[in-house]
């Protein structure tokens, strides 16, 4: 097959991919909607299967059987844990607009620029062999296909005649076209993702086609293939059975691959940065492992077929091409070549894109921004600078990859080179996983772990690879440096019996994780680190992170800064969205509070990474950590607010009480008003009734001279009686108003002997009792019974009570008793009768004015109804109480208690 044809086909294929990518980013049809599909997401993850899988896997299988599989079993196991592990990384990355693994680790440990730069440098150094591997694979595939021979040693030819150089140049241009054509927020490259997905389909189709051809074209079914292989012991032993052949190396490869699936920059890029919808992960969890299974299904059959059909000295890494060629099928060989190109191209494009973002955002930009003389922060448009930095990084990485390939990799199989890179990126895992699940991890711990792990990697894998290529001398491996056997790079501290990769993985990860944990435990977190840790570890619980920086800035400043990296339109649209979500008018917002500053920083971080964004925003933001004073002030304010709140509550309670009091008073006033009306109506009635009868009888006497003397006498008696009643009423009303006018004290204050008062009163009432034939029993048990008060008034009370008793006792057999005794400090005066008694419900109201018991229509009034009211007021004025109880033999007992000695002592 002619070289021109192969080159033309390969270039046409790459151009087709680019066309697809371009259309995805520029059209609005179904192509642009592809990025929102979970299938595209899953297929883009398959960038994991590089040339290593495509060519190296078969090579490995041909030499040592099934132990290429752990490279895919590890990711499968990790993806089973997807909802726990991967989703968490995804959420944190989205929330913080993480652009790379360096960014993530840097962001976790207090947005540390230094840590991010360290991770970036390690990633670049560690991945150069991996990129070299892709170049080597394409070059040797090209050589195999064009010459029909197998395994042209490219390193022996002049540079310009080297296919690998041209492959590197083409791939670099290709990567630049895909990965650094424009700056987009969030580092999304939808075109690249779709192209990678397309390449993944081609990889799978290509390898499956070869597998089916091997099974049914070259052999009579897979049974036939395995049967033929079983006849040759040296082939059958590699996959059939040999006890204990899979040991530590199988396990270490599983672990390394499981870590690499999220630590490799290109995997991080497609899995987390390019992810548009979190739910895509739900399908990818099992679809991606399924893809891995499918693409590996025919690897072993192809390898066995290669061993059966080809001479033993064939480069095993070229078997995929060599088998169809040997079977006389150049078309299938061409498909295989394109599959290999797809694998290499997708890996190189995504890896260099990811690395260029890392180097640009975490090393170059922070450094440039710190150089004051350049004054980058005030330049108007930085997108071009960013793009050129990235393109430069891509070219540099590819150049290093080419140089490594040309000088060092000739003696290694593809898988060994790839595993070297796996061990390097696995150094990020302890800090990353620790950072995600362990709140106590510190920046110093991460620094220590990553640095020491990387140094061990350099010593146990990188330096020996230089030694094997002749740059250092083989005695470095065989005897150790300066002949110190304990430091032999493949058997550090005398640990022998492991293959170099497992050995390096063991020591580097042990030292890495050990150093990370030990230093974290020994050290302390800064407040910033603590806040970040809480945010990352509690990522499953949504909520804003503790903000311990108070930062303010002007929105126009932030806007013009962001516009420089994003373009004005995108920056304004993003801010309008943000302002809208907070209910702020974007046109009038001038001062940016802490949250807005954070929003801008995240927006910028999506383009240039967290570390750079922090430096940039820091340049225009007034930022101050909350000092002790500040915190105290906040606490002070809080306690003041609490105090004010308490006072307010108190006031409101007082107000409530006052309101209740007012309501009570109001009710009482209304009651008094009603009583006054009643009083006036009653007085009116009480005064008019006797007056009316006096007038009526007087008129009769005047107008009827013919009346008999008896009648005249009778009428005059009525007039006199009514006049007396009127006089009594007026007297009592005057009494009452006098008593009420004197307030709460008796008018006279002098010593009074109650016993004498009683005797005086009973003497005055003697005739009344006798006239009504009511007996009166007097028992004075306390004598003298002195109180301070008004003698005449007290006499009035006793007479009132006695008169009352006479009135209600049945004439003839009535019995009343007056009793005076001492109860404690007080004197008790009681008047009992054997009348009908008073109902409990009426015992309060009889003390009101004009209250007379009985039916006012039928019963003849027996008094004016002021006696008890007057008595009540007099007793109250003397500081005593008056109430009614049931008498023992029926009837009522009026009881009065007066504070005898207390009043006397005043």
């Amino acid at each position: 097959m002619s070289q021109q044809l192969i080159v033309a086909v390969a270039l046409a294929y790459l151009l087709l991919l680019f066309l697809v990518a371009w259309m995805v980013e520029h059209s609005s049809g179904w192509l642009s909607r592809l990025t929102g599909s979970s299938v595209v997401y899953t297929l883009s993850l398959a960038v994991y299967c590089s040339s290593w899988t495509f060519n190296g896997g078969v090579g490995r299988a041909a030499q040592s059987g099934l132990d290429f599989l752990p490279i895919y079993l590890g990711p499968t196991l990790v993806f089973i844990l997807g909802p726990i592990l991967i989703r968490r990384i995804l959420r944190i990355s989205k929330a913080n607009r993480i652009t790379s693994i360096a960014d993530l680790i840097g962001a976790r440990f207090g947005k540390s620029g230094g840590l991010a730069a360290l991770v970036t440098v390690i990633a670049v150094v560690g991945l150069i062999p991996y990129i070299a591997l892709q170049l080597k694979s394409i070059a040797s595939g090209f050589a195999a296909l064009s010459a029909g021979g197998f395994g042209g040693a490219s390193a022996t030819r002049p540079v310009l005649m080297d296919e690998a150089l041209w492959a590197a140049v083409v791939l670099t241009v290709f990567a630049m076209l895909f990965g650094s054509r424009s700056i987009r927020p969030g580092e999304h490259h939808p075109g690249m993702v779709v192209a990678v997905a397309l390449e993944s389909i081609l990889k799978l189709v290509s390898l499956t086609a070869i597998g089916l051809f091997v099974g049914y074209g070259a052999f009579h079914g897979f049974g036939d293939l395995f049967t033929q292989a079983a006849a040759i012991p040296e082939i059958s032993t590699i996959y059939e059975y040999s006890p204990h052949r899979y040991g530590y190396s199988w396990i270490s490869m599983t672990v390394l691959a499981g870590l690499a699936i999220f630590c490799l920059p290109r995997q991080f890029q497609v899995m987390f940065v390019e992810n548009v919808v979190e739910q895509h992960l739900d399908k990818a969890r099992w679809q991606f492992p399924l893809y891995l299974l499918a693409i590996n299904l025919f690897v072993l059959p192809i390898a066995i077929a290669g061993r059966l059909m080809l001479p033993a000295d064939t480069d095993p890494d070229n078997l995929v091409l060599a088998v169809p060629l040997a079977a006389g099928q150049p078309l299938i060989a061409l498909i295989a070549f394109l599959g290999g190109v797809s694998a290499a191209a997708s890996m190189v494009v995504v890896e260099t894109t990811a690395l260029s973002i890392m180097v640009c955002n975490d090393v170059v930009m922070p450094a440039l921004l710190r150089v004051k003389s350049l004054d980058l922060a005030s330049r108007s448009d930085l997108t071009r600078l960013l793009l050129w930095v990235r393109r430069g990084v891509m070219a540099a990485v590819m150049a290093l990859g080419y140089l490594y390939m040309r000088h060092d990799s000739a003696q290694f199989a593809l898988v060994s080179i790839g595993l070297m890179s796996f061990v390097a990126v696995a150094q990020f895992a302890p800090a990353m996983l620790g950072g995600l699940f362990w709140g106590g991890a510190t920046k110093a711990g991460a620094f220590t772990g990553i640095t020491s792990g990387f140094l061990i990697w350099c010593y146990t894998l990188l330096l020996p690879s230089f030694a094997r290529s002749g740059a250092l001398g083989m005695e470095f491996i065989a005897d150790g440096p300066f002949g110190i056997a304990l430091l032999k790079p493949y058997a550090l501290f005398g640990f022998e019996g492991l293959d170099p990769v497992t050995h390096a993985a063991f020591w580097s990860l042990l030292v890495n994780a050990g150093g990370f944990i030990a230093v974290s435990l020994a050290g302390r977190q800064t407040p910033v680190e603590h806040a970040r840790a809480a945010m990352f570890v509690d990522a499953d619980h949504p909520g804003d992170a503790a903000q311990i920086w108070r930062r303010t800035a002007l929105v126009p400043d932030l806007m013009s800064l962001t516009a420089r990296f994003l373009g004005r339109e995108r920056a304004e649209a993003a801010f309008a969205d943000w302002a809208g979500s907070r209910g702020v008018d974007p046109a009038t917002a001038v001062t940016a509070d802490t949250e807005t500053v954070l929003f801008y920083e995240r927006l910028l971080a999506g383009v240039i990474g967290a570390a750079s964004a922090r430096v940039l925003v820091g340049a225009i933001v007034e930022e101050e950590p909350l000092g002790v004073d500040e915190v105290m002030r906040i606490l002070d304010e809080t306690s003041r607010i609490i105090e004010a709140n308490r006072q307010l509550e108190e006031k409101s309670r007082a107000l409530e009480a006052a309101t209740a009091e007012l309501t009570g008073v109001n009710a009482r006033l209304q009651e008094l008003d009603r009583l006054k009306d009643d009083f006036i109506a009653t007085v009116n009635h009480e005064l008019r009734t006797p007056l009316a009868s006096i007038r009526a009888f007087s008129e009769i006497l005047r107008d009827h001279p013919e009346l008999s003397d008896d009648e005249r006498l009778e009428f005059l008696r009525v007039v006199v009686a009514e006049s007396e009643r009127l006089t009594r009423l007026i007297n009592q009303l005057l009494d009452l108003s006098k008593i009420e006018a004197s307030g709460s004290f008796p008018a006279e204050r002098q010593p009074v002997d109650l016993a004498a008062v009683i005797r005086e009163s009973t003497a005055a009432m003697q005739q009344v009792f006798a006239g009504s034939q009511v007996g009166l029993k007097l028992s004075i048990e306390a004598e003298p019974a002195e109180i301070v008060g008004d003698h005449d008034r007290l006499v009035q009370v006793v007479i009132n009570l006695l008169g009352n008793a006479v009135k209600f006792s049945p004439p003839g057999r009535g019995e009343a008793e007056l009793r005076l005794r001492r109860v404690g400090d007080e004197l008790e005066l009681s008047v009992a009768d054997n009348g009908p008694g008073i109902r409990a419900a009426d015992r309060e109201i009889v003390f009101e004015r004009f209250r007379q018991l009985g039916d006012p229509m039928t019963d003849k009034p027996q008094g004016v109804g002021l006696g008890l009211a007057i008595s009540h007021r007099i007793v109250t004025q003397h500081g005593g109480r008056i109430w009614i109880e049931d008498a023992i033999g029926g009837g009522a007992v009026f009881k009065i208690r007066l504070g005898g000695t207390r009043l006397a002592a005043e």
Partner: protein
Amino acid sequence: MLRRSRRRDRLLGLFGLGVLLLDPPILNLVGGTLFGWPSLYLYLFGVWGLLIAGAAWLGGRGTAPPIDGGRKTGR
């Protein structure tokens, strides 16, 4: 909440099972051929396939709210 933690436990269980079955020493117990096919090849791909089926069966319905509380930012 209960359902989610149950699912989490099941996933961890499946992960543990996978680690056990796909690594030595269990792996080294398988050898020879089955119907002319290498039984290790059948075993590895069989277990692998079952693990994928298990992962798919455990389902991706656990859709929790997004981390920023669903707040609309200009992403």
